[in-house]
């Protein structure tokens, strides 16, 4: 055992505790301030907790026509649900194909998919994407972006499921083959039920990233404000030029945007961390 002195432990707690306060402060401040009136936010900036907490900001946001929080919450919800479902299905399937499948071109396709981690021209490529969407009679909209997501490769998640499926013994597959199961039905009947831990990790990471996404949903919904997601809408409020006048709505909106991920984190904390470390080692 290392030497653990009392003084050392006290110093440790002081430093770690101090950083913990800094880590928590912006979140606590945001949530607490969302219960203040705008006057209190501006007049008493040094006050962290509201003197007379009220739900006024939430009620205003709920009833507001310009800042349609109900609609935005719904947009965020269906966007996230579809993204999570699509990511789960396509990356576990790809993980399965790349471990158990044998077909000409396997190595090449895997290498090409892996290369997508590094090849990127960034956001300029939204122009050809718009062209393609127009060509198939789909507008620039959240649904257009969802279509893009359905066809995209999430290589980190493929790596995650691939390395997990590798640990599953092949005996079950072989038994299923003898029983006449096809390659695809082995995936749905045998593999998918056995990889629940990794689907939880991928699902929770996909949930967090699509719920939190800003740039792409913002680009795809510029001409259709009614399809904005919550994050896009809250940021749009900042850029709308009202500035300080709408801090209260912004803080309430931010809190509403924060709550789902905080709940997910409280429930699935270990999946966040396991996904991150596994992704770093394998990816």
């Amino acid at each position, binding site marked *: 055992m290392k030497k653990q002195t009392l003084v050392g432990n006290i110093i440790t707690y002081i430093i770690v505790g101090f950083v913990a306060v800094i880590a928590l402060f912006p979140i606590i401040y945001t949530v607490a301030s969302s219960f203040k009136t705008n006057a209190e936010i501006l007049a008493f900036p040094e006050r962290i907790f509201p003197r007379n907490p009220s739900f006024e900001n939430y009620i205003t946001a709920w009833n507001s026509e310009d800042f349609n929080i109900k609609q935005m919450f719904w947009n965020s919800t269906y966007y996230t649900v579809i993204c999570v479902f699509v990511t789960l299905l396509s990356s576990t399937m790809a993980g399965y194909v790349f471990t158990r499948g044998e077909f000409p071109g396997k190595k090449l396709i895997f290498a090409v998919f892996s290369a997508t981690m590094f090849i990127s021209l*960034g956001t300029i490529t939204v122009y050809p994407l718009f062209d393609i969407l127009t060509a198939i009679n789909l507008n620039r909209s959240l649904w257009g972006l969802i279509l893009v997501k359905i066809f995209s490769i999430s290589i980190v998640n493929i790596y995650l499921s691939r390395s997990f499926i590798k640990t599953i013994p092949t005996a079950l597959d072989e038994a299923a083959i003898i029983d006449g199961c096809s390659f695809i039905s082995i995936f749905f009947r045998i593999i998918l039920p056995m990889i629940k831990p990794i689907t939880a990790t991928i699902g929770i990471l996909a949930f967090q990233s699509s719920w939190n996404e800003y740039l792409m949903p913002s680009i795809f919904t510029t001409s259709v404000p009614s399809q904005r997601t919550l994050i896009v809408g809250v940021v749009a409020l900042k850029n709308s030029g009202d500035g300080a006048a709408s801090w209260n709505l912004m803080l309430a909106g931010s809190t509403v945007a924060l709550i789902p991920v905080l709940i997910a984190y409280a429930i699935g904390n270990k999946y966040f961390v396991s996904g991150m470390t596994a992704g770093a080692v394998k990816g």
Partner: protein
Amino acid sequence: MELTNTKKSRQLNSKTKMTLQCYLMLSTQIIGFIVLTAYPIFWAAKWAWFYFDNIPQNTRFVGWENFINIFKDSAYWRAWGTTLKFAVCKIPIELPLAMLLAVLLNRRIKGQGAFRAIFYMPHIVSVAIVGLIFSNMFDYFGVINGLLTKFGVLTEGVNWFDNPNTALMVIVLASTWSTFGTNMIYFLGALQTIPEELYESAYLEGAKPFTVFFKITLPMIAPILQTVLLLAINGTLHINDLVLVTTNGAPGGKTFTVMSYIVKQFVPGFAEANVNIGYGCAMALITSVMYCIIGIVYSKLSKRLSEIY
């Protein structure tokens, strides 16, 4: 003879079946790669040679002009300067902090799990919301000015976003706040793989804690350090949303990083109407080539780190 033939054909048959099913399962992603990744690259590589602003009669071939203009574009190179400044400010704060916290938590103190969860928590907050929160906190009428004047650190509030240096500082703080926990978890994971005996024998021989850190801990986690540093460099080069939301370039476009500058100049919803997209394509190409070079140079330079043990 006949028997082996039917067996062979059945095997062949099942092989083609398997191939078909594999391609079927990968079909969306293969189509996606061709249409969403490969095609846009060729698209950009083509239009980089044109003046192209989405108005057909303006479109014309310009040869090297777009590329030459990039080298004259002082705002673009200032964005490079900002990006490098951002990296030079952020990484030396973030990684030592993450390392210190990892070493401290590795002492197996009570509440290790809780502290780990708290340090990682900022990372789950949307980067856009992080930008909003920090631009609110550092607003002239915000909580930071309020607290600093209350405790007498400042006599009056600072306009954090009126000066490029302080504005960049806010971005550095916001970005560090958002990611230090992930790096701490990488380091903690690496520390936990170091065998206890190494420390025991070092302490038996009377080594001081600092010596132990530099002679045992640091060399043992060097391979992870190489990866973490790569991710940190990559992250700072790609910083984008945070800048757009926190400062949106303020003051006067001086805090744009490379990625956010390209978005602000060329991407619909952020840029002005009818910009020269061809120029944007050339800029995106040059930028990604330079990022590639940085990546290659880094992996050459840092090779020693992964080979220490």
